[in-house]
């Protein structure tokens, strides 16, 4: 099917994370028409997978809830999930955008009753928990998923499992005949809010991610601490399910490194400082966090958060980029080797668990973007030559939520200016 919708006054927002939702809402609440496309089945992006937010240590769900309510109340935003941009042509004020919509195999009739999920037995790695556990092949991505609609994993379509899901649905919402669709739209301006992804930790060879089970990433650690995560919020290490009370955090894992990402990912120092407090929350005075760092970059006004953590007796700091990790074969403990640059002391320290504070890499790295888009040396989006496309949030720079929202609001304003100009020329 090829449908043509929208006009040159429409703003297209690509990516439904906190930045994309913000950009879409700001424009929509100014009365502009917005199409918000998201490649996964749900809105929320990476933030929805964090346990708590720095600096206030609140849960991301509340911020998400407010934005979802705003979205539900606003008729100017059209949301398209499981949708990606495959091509953009034209120029500022007059883009033609081709969208590719992947089949969800569940239509609008779904009431999220969960009968299909109960019926199937096949399981797939849970993308929500970065594959740390599995979920049924007919699933609601998470409790707060928006839209509240199930997804059938393509792996069971055309199998008896798929038929089971179909048979179980009381409202006939499971549609196994759904096909990939191509949709063409017109838009006056495009906001790229495609966010970030963690740098592939396995590429940092001396740290043994992928070889040593008790070396994990900071994203995985967020899921371990979360009651909705694979361990029900208990900090149990993947190697043997033992409580990880003595945790090492390795900063700049892949960032500030000419061999990996050359930029400072800016939020990972704060993320690790925050995560030391997960250890304290779980084990009290028995917990022990050690942060290995080059220098702590608590951005902006977060210095007081750093000072708060420095005062915490369960947290210690070692000024050193860890050289390599080995594994104690007897107990599965990772052993960190390096030199403490304060005094040049050589160390070999054992921990229960190592958390790599992995860097943020733009999600669009390796994705073909319109030629007009300008990227910086780390592939963050700076804008477009014709000044009709804008980067927002973590797609534009490694930002925390607060700054991502500011950046999205700014991008939204730029986009509004483009379509406003369009409106006045069309009227003339």
């Amino acid at each position: 099917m090829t449908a043509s919708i929208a006009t040159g006054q429409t703003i297209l927002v690509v990516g439904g994370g906190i930045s994309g939702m913000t950009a879409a809402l700001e424009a929509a609440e100014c009365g502009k028409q917005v199409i918000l496309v998201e490649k996964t089945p749900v809105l929320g992006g990476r933030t929805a997978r964090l346990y708590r937010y720095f600096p206030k240590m609140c849960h991301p769900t509340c911020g998400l809830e407010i934005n979802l309510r705003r979205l539900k109340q606003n008729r100017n935003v059209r949301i398209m999930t499981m949708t990606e941009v495959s091509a953009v042509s034209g120029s500022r004020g007059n883009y033609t955008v081709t969208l590719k919509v992947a089949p969800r195999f569940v239509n609008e009739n779904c009431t999220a009753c969960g009968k299909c999920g109960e019926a199937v037995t096949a399981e797939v790695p849970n993308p929500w928990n970065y594959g740390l556990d599995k979920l049924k092949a007919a699933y609601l991505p998470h409790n707060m998923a928006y839209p509240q609609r199930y997804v059938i994993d393509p792996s069971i379509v055309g199998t008896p499992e798929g038929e089971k899901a179909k048979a179980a649905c009381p409202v006939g919402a499971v549609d196994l005949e759904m096909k990939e669709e191509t949709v063409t739209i017109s838009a006056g301006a495009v906001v790229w809010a495609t966010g970030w992804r963690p740098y592939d930790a396995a590429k940092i060879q001396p740290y043994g991610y992928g070889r040593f089970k008790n070396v994990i990433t900071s994203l995985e650690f967020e899921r371990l601490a979360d009651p909705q995560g694979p361990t029900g919020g208990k900090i149990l290490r993947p190697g043997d399910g033992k409580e990880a009370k003595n945790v090492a955090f390795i900063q700049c894992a892949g960032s500030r490194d000419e061999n990996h990402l050359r930029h400072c990912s800016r939020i990972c120092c704060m993320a690790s400082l925050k995560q030391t407090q997960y250890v304290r929350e779980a084990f009290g005075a028995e917990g022990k966090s050690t942060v290995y760092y080059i220098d702590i970059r608590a951005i902006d006004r977060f210095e007081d958060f750093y000072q708060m953590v420095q005062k915490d007796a369960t947290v210690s700091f070692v000024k050193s980029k860890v050289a390599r990790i080995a594994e104690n074969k007897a107990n599965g403990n990772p052993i960190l080797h390096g030199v403490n640059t304060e005094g040049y002391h050589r160390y070999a320290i054992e921990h229960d668990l190592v958390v790599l504070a992995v860097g943020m890499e733009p999600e669009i790295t390796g994705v073909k973007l319109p030629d007009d888009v300008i990227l910086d040396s780390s592939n963050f989006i700076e804008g477009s030559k014709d000044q009709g496309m804008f980067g927002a949030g973590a797609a534009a720079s490694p930002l925390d939520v607060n700054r991502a929202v500011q950046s999205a609001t700014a991008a939204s304003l730029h986009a509004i200016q483009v379509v406003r100009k369009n409106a006045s020329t069309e009227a003339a």
Partner: protein
Amino acid sequence: MTTANQNAVERYRNNFLKEVEANVEEGDMVKMCMQCGVCAGSCPLGPHWEHSPQKIFMMIRAGKREEVLSSDSMWMCTSCYNCIVRCPRQLPITHIMHGLANYAHRLGLAPKGQPTREFGTLFWNNLVKKGRVNELTLTIGHYFKDGIAAGIKTGLAMQAVGLGMVKAKRLNPMEIFGGHAVKDLKGFHAMVAKAQEIEAKKKGFTA
């Protein structure tokens, strides 16, 4: 003080980093070090020397000229390249270490009796004589560097190895009488002299 050393002190007074940048191979990369410590932790010789590369680079910036140039650290580097591979700023650490060793050697500040330096000197002198290394004279020179008694002792201890090599035609006892040279020995000497001239010019050595 050698004249070269005196000149260098005069020229770069209080700015050892500039001196290193001008005279040491890849010395201009020293300032790129961010003191992360990965090289220090990655060096297999780490526990055995006093200054890690990271520490050396900090000392250069701190103007610790004497300590750096007389350090034995650069002489311990085995060129394993572990540090270069891991350095997040891509400093050519190994090359800088050898550059520093070479510079200290030329200025006559390198540590006396340092085994790598001594063997290096022995090797070089042996090599330039005939354009090829004479294994027999090199070995003997090496064994007897600490006196006749020590030389005889090491020689006896290594006797079986030596005989084995002779049997396997890897060592010719006749080489003791000077040994054979490369084909165009005069040409070879001219080439080395030219290379040294170019290097001296590049690094600003007058003496």
